[in-house]
């Protein structure tokens, strides 16, 4: 299945600058489906509650393959909650419960009996705050591969992942140093290297630049741009310029609801919903 999708990728990349789906001019619309071959993740009427409070309400959203999808919205609107549902990290929040469906490559990941451990290798995550392991830089990158039974050479893997995360040159002479000796931006790139070392199919990133200076941010944005050749990226961000710069599609959430999702150019130039327009023009949030 993965193979088939990869062979399709080049064809889609040619059409990168065109809107994936034409928006029919028929007033307010909150979702639109992608052809099933193009979507990697699909949320269907997904509601996520903490106790009785619904943090995400009936969200239906498709994540297209080999694209960067940005999720924007004011603080507390449920972006992280939705993102963490995609690799079942919400399992570790005791009060969280999920209704509706969430498909990864056509399989409902919340069906009873589904094993989230294998899923998390295929859907990697980069957290808002850099969270390297208090171990060596090399170990940070190689550990995930090692526990997942990686058969290849771990040293090569570490080097490749650090190259991809644009960190290799800065750390190649101190791979055995503790990861906490790195700066915040370096730590975040290390966390990205750690995630891509597993060659996931999807990379979920929750405000990966929020703790970083503009230079480190620019490097990570470059990186995201390169990553989408190989991976599908879902990026939560508070930074509208960042969403506009790096994403192909943008989803706007407000108070737990998905207000609008479309090609990034459309969302930022002619959104169909007033709330979207208000938000991107900075009138609230």
């Amino acid at each position, binding site marked *: 299945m993965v193979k088939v999708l990869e062979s399709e990728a080049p064809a889609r990349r040619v059409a990168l600058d065109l809107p994936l789906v034409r928006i029919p001019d028929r007033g307010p619309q909150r979702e639109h489906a992608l052809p099933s071959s193009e979507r990697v993740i699909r949320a269907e009427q997904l509601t996520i509650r903490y106790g009785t409070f619904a943090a995400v309400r009936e969200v239906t959203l498709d994540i297209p393959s080999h694209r960067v999808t940005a999720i924007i919205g004011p603080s507390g609107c449920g972006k992280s909650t939705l993102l963490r549902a995609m690799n079942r*990290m919400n399992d*570790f929040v005791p009060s969280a419960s999920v209704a509706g469906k969430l498909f990864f490559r056509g399989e409902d990941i919340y069906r009873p009996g589904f094993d989230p451990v294998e899923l998390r290798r295929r859907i990697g995550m980069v957290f808002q705050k850099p*969270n390297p392991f208090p171990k060596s830089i090399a170990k940070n990158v190689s550990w*995930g591969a090692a*526990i997942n039974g990686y058969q290849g050479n771990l040293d090569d893997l570490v080097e490749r992942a650090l190259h991809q995360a644009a960190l290799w040159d800065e750390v190649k002479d101190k791979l055995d140093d503790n990861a906490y000796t790195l700066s915040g931006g370096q730590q975040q790139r290390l966390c990205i290297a*750690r995630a891509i070392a597993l060659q996931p199919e999807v990379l979920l990133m929750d405000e990966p630049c929020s703790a970083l200076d503009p230079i480190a941010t620019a490097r990570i944005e470059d990186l995201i741009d390169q990553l989408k050749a190989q991976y599908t990226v879902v990026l939560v961000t508070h930074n509208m310029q960042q969403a506009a710069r790096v994403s192909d599609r943008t989803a706007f959430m407000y108070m737990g609801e998905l207000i609008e999702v479309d090609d990034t150019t459309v969302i930022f130039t002619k959104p169909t919903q007033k709330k979207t327009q208000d938000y991107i023009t900075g009138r609230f949030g």
Partner: protein
Amino acid sequence: MTGATAVSSSLFMPRVQRRRRSGRAFELLCMLLSLFGLAFLAVLIGRVLWEGASWISVKFLTNFPSQMFPENAGIKSALWGTIWLMAITTLTAVPIGVAAAVYLEEYAPRNRLTKLIHFNITNLAGVPSIVYGILGLAVFVRWFRLDRSVLSGGLILCLLVLPVVTIASREALLAVPKSIREAAYALGATRWQTVRWHVLPAALPGIMTGIILAVSRAIGEAAPLIIIGAVTYVAFVPTGPLDYFTALPIQIYAWTDASQPEFHHLAAAGIIVLLGILLPMNAVAVAVRASQQRKKLW
């Protein structure tokens, strides 16, 4: 704007001098009280050293105790009994206590039952040691027919320190940031892999500190061992877990009880030996904790 600021600032009465003075008074009070505690301790230790130091010799460590000839009396059997107790207590309490903490913290669902268990473990840590002695008498000595063996004694001390080891381990696990667990899980680690490779190593210094302090408390205990009838003036060293035994605190207690004043000096010398075991242990615990704080990265 500036007008409003001026008006509101005149409503403040900083009284910095007075606040400083009361702060200073509190500091002084705390200092005096802690000095009182220290002075008390110094007097106690000084007295024990003065009474017992001259009685410490190789002979004292290698002779068996005697209730007739103080000049030939030693603590060989008590010292070995204490070493046996330490070993049995550590070997049983550490795996059980750490496993309980890992289970409660990492695996168990957070519901009423686990809350109740937490609450009760905390309460158990406050139960007087003599109660454990009575329990051990009924369970280990009589029911399991372990008799007054060093194994019975060790198991009782194990029960005594289990709550402390569990609580200390749990706190050490709690102190490991959630973000490290999440990082591991997000890489497709199982719970056990996460605990084994990241949570336990990060919590280890805290767990070790707890274990050392708990065991050092256990080897100072006399009451529960007296309850099960650990014998005094033992003229042999335990060679197996089912042998009879005596322990340092018991021997010290027995000598304190003797009428001849020479024996009181022996008791003081025994206390010095006991302190000689406890202080290094506590020093190690303090050192482990300090090095952990220095290395703390998150």
